[in-house]
């Protein structure tokens, strides 16, 4: 009794600090072990030459110097820019479909679900579906083109077209995602404001721009976040559809990193990590921006 009494009171007095710490502990430990610490480890590994098994040799910034002159790295970086720019088309496209489907006719719920459907399928299957869709003789695309007399296109076999073909495949599920964000957002648009604006004579594009879009801002923000992250994370489609080819023309940083560090091109863990660090730094610009906007929204809630 005498020995435990002060201890108990200490716990009682500090329970508002101790409880959250205990609740956080397993999650934070796990997350640090698998996510936070590996980020720093990758930074470290990028300074070494290492095959993943033997002794690692310190090369300082050697890997980064090699990147500067690496043609494949340059192509990958450019493709990432293309992905980023074109992937953003998913946002207006999603908004367009959402506006098209925001009606109350019979069966519209099923239509909405079926339009959203591509997002639920794995990117691997999307990649396969589009690979077959693009096939020179067998594919639906070329069958249609030939039917209307436009000749045929070997999209994935053409170094100048392949990346765009893959991005188009990626836009399919991403547009579906943006569509569902906007459909949910449109549900919450204040009908009184719409009616008021209508009485003032606003309609069509002006109504959309000045009345509806400002109210869809939260949806647009999330659409931006998920689309940018999705664009920079693109890997599955490239791996499935072209495996980086033809002639390495469809590589992006995430794919090139994997290729260098863990495939038949050799186990260059250090060089691969350097590529990953570059990709991470690009992503960090966006992550910082997202966190900053979220932090801004948090502040009024805290005061």
């Amino acid at each position: 009794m005498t020995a435990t009494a002060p201890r108990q009171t200490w716990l009682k007095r500090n329970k508002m600090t101790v409880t959250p710490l205990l609740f956080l502990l397993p999650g934070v430990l796990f997350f640090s072990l698998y996510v936070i610490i590996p980020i720093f480890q990758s930074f470290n590994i990028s300074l070494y030459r290492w095959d993943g098994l033997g002794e690692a040799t310190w090369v300082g910034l050697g890997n980064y110097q090699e990147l500067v002159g690496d043609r494949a790295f340059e192509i990958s970086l450019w493709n990432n820019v293309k992905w980023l720019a074109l992937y953003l088309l998913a946002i207006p496209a999603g908004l367009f479909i959402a506006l098209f489907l925001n009606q109350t006719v019979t069966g519209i719920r099923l239509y909405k679900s079926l339009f959203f459907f591509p997002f639920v399928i794995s990117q691997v299957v999307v990649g396969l579906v589009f690979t077959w869709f693009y096939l020179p003789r067998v594919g639906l695309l070329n069958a249609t083109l030939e039917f209307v007399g436009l000749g045929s296109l070997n999209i994935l076999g053409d170094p100048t077209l392949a990346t765009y073909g893959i991005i188009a495949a990626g836009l399919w599920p991403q547009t579906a995602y943006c569509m569902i964000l906007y459909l949910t957002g449109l549900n919450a648009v204040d009908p009184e404001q719409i009616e008021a604006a209508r009485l003032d004579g606003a309609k069509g594009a002006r109504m959309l721009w000045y009345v509806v879009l400002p109210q869809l801002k939260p949806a647009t923000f999330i659409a931006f976040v998920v689309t940018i992250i999705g664009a920079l994370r693109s890997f599955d489609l490239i791996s499935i559809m072209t495996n980086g080819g033809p002639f390495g023309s469809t590589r992006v940083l995430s794919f090139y990193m994997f290729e260098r560090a863990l495939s038949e091109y050799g186990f260059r863990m250090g060089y691969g990590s350097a590529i990953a660090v570059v990709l991470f730094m690009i992503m960090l610009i966006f992550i910082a921006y997202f966190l900053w906007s979220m932090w801004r929204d948090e502040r009024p809630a805290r005061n």
Partner: protein
Amino acid sequence: MFPTPIQKRSRAAQLTYQSFLPLALILWLAPLIAVAIFSIRPIADFTQGNYWGMPSSFDFFANYGRVFFDSDMPRYMLNSLMITIPTVIGAVALSSMTGFALGIYRFRGNLLIFFMFIAGNFVPFQILMVPVRDLTVGMGLYDTKLGLILFHVAFQTGFCTLFMRNFIKALPMELIEAARVEGVREWQIFWYVVLPLMRPAIAALAVLIFTFIWNDYFWAIVLTQGPEAQPVTAGITSFNSQFVAQYNLMSAGSIVAAIPPVLMFFAMQKHFIAGLTLGAVK
């Protein structure tokens, strides 16, 4: 409501809209419909170049039967299930605890830890790849389901914490204050007060994480390599090399691999969408 409800427009506009709907849907899903049609054709259609005419016979049972009885597909599907379900349970359990701590208590570093989870959730997988692979190999878990599960649980905890914390933050604090006044202990508040209220959030996260993990491909190829442990997304490439150029079987295989998350989505649509919009868009 925006745009103007179609009911308020002319009869002609209504008819146009009604006929446009199915047409747009067919166009939107065309690549998928093509695969579905492929999957019921006999192989003879492909050797004879009859890709788009009437199927010469209806081979649904023959094709899907071969996927299930003549390949490793059932095994890959089972692996996927055995990876996905423990991950869902683990991530939801960990994040309901972290979400509770971050949503209810005010302490120094609260927002910092929360933002650590969000930021970690956005990083490119490649920056984690080499160290996580080393860690998994080091623990003797390379090419095991457990190795994949542990990583997935840890990584998904980031996203789940974001969701749970925001959900809990929106709960009425008076409820918790009242329980405290009654002398209810903190862990009991978690178990008896907060957890029951979190049911919709748990449902949303469960379907969402199920889909994410089922569809994961990158970590499957980084951390596993054979039919022992590989989930279906990675296994399907070996499946396709087993049936090279047999488009009917490859199509059937893809459809089988895609079905579980699709069923999940249609069964729990409301929760799924609530999860996807991060609860931020209501």
